[in-house]
């Protein structure tokens, strides 16, 4: 029941906002903030109250299920679709991230959302329901339902409150992701027909037994949908456009949570549900991830628009996630999982900071800046902190995840790991280049000299993320401890799959096996 409350509380908030008069903007902001704060409190409470289930894979602490509707299957036997939400460690982390990020996002809108506040808040809250539902749904149909529903709010957020090219960006984003998810729908239909159930738990138990070829078809459809969302090379070109055009808050949610829906889906469906296919496809996925890391970094390096640069860096960072997940080693899976959270925090912060700068200067072009550190020392402090966290400096959140990812992928494919490692170098290159051009040097432009430093609201809204960044960096176990048993279970399934398919075909042609382990 907690989960239902958690998921639909934002929707209730949205309805409440809808009922306010259009001019009462303060009230609308207030309701939105209060709702998201309530969700955040609830989310943190769930996080703290979450007990790692016993090794026997007993029932998860939080779950909810209700028959939803019946779909035809075979010979008059229907398939019962459930409205079932459940939380395991994997979704726990994503849900908590979503819950914690949203109040921050709402608070950040004080600075940049001035028109049509009511609609904005409604869409934000609806989006939160969609995202939470996506992470919590344990029924294939329900998952798809939430998955697509969460698409619409961002479409409006970018389309109404975005920049100059917003229409192009938002349509591109929408159609691109939709194309992927529709193919996923066909796969879901096929799976339901195949298995007669849409329950994720049962499917996880059963789909491992379907022939590899069939699994691969499902895998392809799911991976395409998730790959577009992640976005994985070469399906990434919608992201820089969407990010650049989105309002700050939209960018933060997009980077912080929406992209994670893709990686979450890869983990949950492509790997956990289709282990054999995952093993067979792993070399390809790792290649895409590793090349994505390098490609995204080089792409970011060439950008002159600060926001676009960060967007491209997302491509690179999510390449890490994919590389780690499809290493299919315990370290890789855990690292990928951790990196999802890390990216949400670091890139969220980066977008917030760029947004704050944009609100003051109305420009994002790197050339327009220089010497900002002189006039905005606090901004510079937060920026450098965030850049370091994004670049994976030990002691901050980015490091442990990246290390585990690279270690995990090294264990299954040294080549791709080493290619991914170049991202460690180039990550520093483009981030520091941007930092240098923006913050350092002499502050000669009079427009920059007039800039004012961060105010209290801006500092307060970033602090939780800063604290999290340090906490995750110093004590990652506090977070990953809750996920480990579930990831270990996934790892076990994959290991079984690897053994069973190893006889059929070379799984990872580039590895010489994990020695001495």
């Amino acid at each position, binding site marked *: 029941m907690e989960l239902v409350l958690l998921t639909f509380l934002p929707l209730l908030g949205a309805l409440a906002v809808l009922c306010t008069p259009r001019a009462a903007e303060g009230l609308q902001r207030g309701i939105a903030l209060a709702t998201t704060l309530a969700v955040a409190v609830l989310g943190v409470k769930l996080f703290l109250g979450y007990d790692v289930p016993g090794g026997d894979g007993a029932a998860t602490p939080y779950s909810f299920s209700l028959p939803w509707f019946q779909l035809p299957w075979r010979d008059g036997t229907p398939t019962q679709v459930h409205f079932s939400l459940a939380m395991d460690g994997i979704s726990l982390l994503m849900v908590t991230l979503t819950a914690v990020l949203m109040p921050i996002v709402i608070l950040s809108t004080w600075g940049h959302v001035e028109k049509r506040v009511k609609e904005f808040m409604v869409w934000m809250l609806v989006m939160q329901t969609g995202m939470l539902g996506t992470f919590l749904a344990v029924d294939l149909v329900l998952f798809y339902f939430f998955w697509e529903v969460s698409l619409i709010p961002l479409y409006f957020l970018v389309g109404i409150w975005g920049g100059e090219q917003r229409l192009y960006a938002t349509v591109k984003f929408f159609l691109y992701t939709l194309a992927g998810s529709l193919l996923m729908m066909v796969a879901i239909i096929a799976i339901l027909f195949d298995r007669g159930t849409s329950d994720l738990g049962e499917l996880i138990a059963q789909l491992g037994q379907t022939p590899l070829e069939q699994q691969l078809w499902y895998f392809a459809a799911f991976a395409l949908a998730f790959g577009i969302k992640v976005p994985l090379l070469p399906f990434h070109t919608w992201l820089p456009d969407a990010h650049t055009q989105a309002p700050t808050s939209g960018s933060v949610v997009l980077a912080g949570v929406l992209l994670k829906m893709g990686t979450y889906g890869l983990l949950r469906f492509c790997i956990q549900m289709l282990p054999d296919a995952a093993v067979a496809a792993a070399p390809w996925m790792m290649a895409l991830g590793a090349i994505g890391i390098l490609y995204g970094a080089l792409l970011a390096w060439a950008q002159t628009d600060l926001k676009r640069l960060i967007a491209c860096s997302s491509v690179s960072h999510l390449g890490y996630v994919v590389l780690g997940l499809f290493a299919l080693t315990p370290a890789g899976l855990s690292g990928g999982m951790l990196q999802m959270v890390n990216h949400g925090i670091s890139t969220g912060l980066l977008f917030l900071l760029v947004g704050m700068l944009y609100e003051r200067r109305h420009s994002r072009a790197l050339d327009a800046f220089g010497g900002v550190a002189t006039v905005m020392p606090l901004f510079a402090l937060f920026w450098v902190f965030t850049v370091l966290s994004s670049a994976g400096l030990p002691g901050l959140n980015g490091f*442990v995840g990246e290390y585990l990812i690279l270690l*995990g992928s*090294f264990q299954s494919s040294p080549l791709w790991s080493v290619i991914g490692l170049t991202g460690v170098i180039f990550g520093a290159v483009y981030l520091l280049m941007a930092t*240098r051009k923006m913050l350092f040097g002499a502050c000669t432009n009079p427009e920059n000299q007039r800039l004012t430093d961060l105010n209290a609201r801006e500092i307060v809204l970033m602090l939780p993320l800063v604290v999290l960044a340090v906490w995750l960096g110093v004590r990652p176990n506090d977070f990953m401890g809750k996920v480990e048993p579930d990831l270990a279970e996934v790892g076990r399934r994959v290991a079984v799959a690897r053994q069973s398919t190893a006889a059929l075909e070379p799984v990872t042609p580039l590895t010489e096996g994990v020695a001495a382990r």
Partner: protein
Amino acid sequence: MPSHESHAWLWWIPLLPLLGSAIAGALHLATLRARHGDPQASAPASLAPWIACGAMLGSFVLSVTGFLELRELEPAARHLASTAHDWISIGGLDVDLGLLLDPLSSVMTLVITGVGFLIHVYASGYMKGDKGYGKFFAYLNLFVFAMLMLVLSSSLLGVFIGWEGVGLCSFLLIGFWYEKGWPAEAAQKAFVMNRVGDACFLIGSFLLIRLFDTLDLATIAHTVGSTVSFTDEQALDMSLAALFLFGGCCGKSAQFPLFTWLPDAMAGPTPVSALIHAATMVTSGIYLVVRLNPLFAASGWVLPLIAIVGALTALIGGSTALVQRDIKKVLAYSTVSQLGYMFLALGSGAWAAALFHVVTHAFFKALLFLGAGSVIHGMHEEQDMHKMGGLRKHMPQTYITFLAGAAALSGLPLLSGFFSKDEILAHAFANGGLYYGLWAVGALTAALTAYYTWRMVALTFFGEERFDHHHVHPHESPLVMTLPLMVLAVLSILGGVLGLPPVLHVPHLLAEWLAPVTDAGNKILAQSPGEHHLSHALEWVLLGLGSAIALGFAHTGFHAHRHGTAQDEFFARKRPTLAATLGDAWTIDSRYARIIVLPLRMLSFLIAVVVDQFAIDGLVNGTGRTARDIAQHSRRAVDGSLASYALWMGAGALAICALWMWS
């Protein structure tokens, strides 16, 4: 082990500077806030040096305590540890966060905190009046924290945390005067080049995990030391691990080919150059190799490779220092060169000698940097030696101490540098074969060192006063700056007692102290064939040769330049190409720009414009455009005419008939 939890006080060694850093940082922020209201309220920041120096002093005292405690123990039992278990236990990676104080880390800790303290004191005078006063000490203390974590950590992951931490602080401190622009660029370059090394470090750590399933340094060293034989695959993995770790060291310790960031790093304030880019951070590579000496000893071909790289770096650094005009650049290239020496030592299997040189180098190079800083300070931020001259009259204390440092660096007999350098050359010579050549390179570099050191002394302190007397009034630095110089001068002169050569029949204190750590590596090396001992006579010969080279070239260098810049100008006129090549460090850096950076930059633009925008996004947008084109074309069928609609229908009916009949 029960002893593991019992030394929790060890944590205070790194934590004190961290605390200091936090307080200093807070003070700086308070200054920032105050500055908004009140233009001259920098009062909070003036507390920062007290905090920072206090933290350093405390840390140093603790280090000394630790050292004394270690000495009480049996040599084999000399380790104090404190471990937080299961710091990371994620995805099969179980890492404990632990501190380990053993003879090796104890030496490093003493150097870091001791020399560090002196430099902090010096900096409190040097940086006075800078608007980032508080921030500077926050960074400096943070650096010390990271450096201590590097040397104290019991696991490779902990080392890496320190490793990157010092890199970060180096970045922050090099770019401390970011308004000027070029320090920021230098900082970026330093960080990125270090990252290249760090990437290698990571690969090395992965290989170690593959080999040993742990990152615990003691376990790794012990396992290698006690394993009799390795399979071919394991041996290859070990060599690769050593190679990649050495790659990491190349970045951090500025070895060829990754050394070019270090000269640029001189953009930072001089105390930073002294602390980070001479005494401590750049020696962390040497520390790491010594720490894992059994691994490197067992790594086969990697060891000679290290020696070659070291010798090459020493030569490049030494020859480049010959023609530099910037006093800090001379010292920077000198540092590169001396670091090369240390790696030559490591490559020769002379772990203790390398560390000995680390220690003496920390003394005299810190001294020289601080002295140079004092000069620069007195000369109103002038660094060009051609615009100095005759300063010995104006800053006598600086002059005297600088002389001590120069003498030690150039290896004048009986000074600290003499013994450590000689020990390295002797070890290299003893290895024979390829190492004879490396020895020759080392000896040549010793000659160059003596020359450029005394050229520097001559240009700075002797000859006519070449500066503009109207604007520059050289003056001696305050006591807070000269006092550390004096202490360091004493250490530079006497530091040699730590490692007197065997021919004198006195114990090599440092080697004995380090024996528990280096024994394993030495044992492995002893099993491999080759000449390992020099006869006493030969040692005497080598000592004599070393003294002769040092004295001779010091004399030459001093006298060639004591009368001004004529010699430099003559050389530049006579051999312009050579002068330019040397001046630009064999043009390696500019080659990087052309061969690596530029193509990558072009690749990046190529990807951004051609691949991403044109090809991939073009395909995406092209799909949309094609859809719209199809749409426009498909409109033509709907031409509004009844007859054509009927025609379509008739044709359609016919087609359906045909299809169904056919199927």
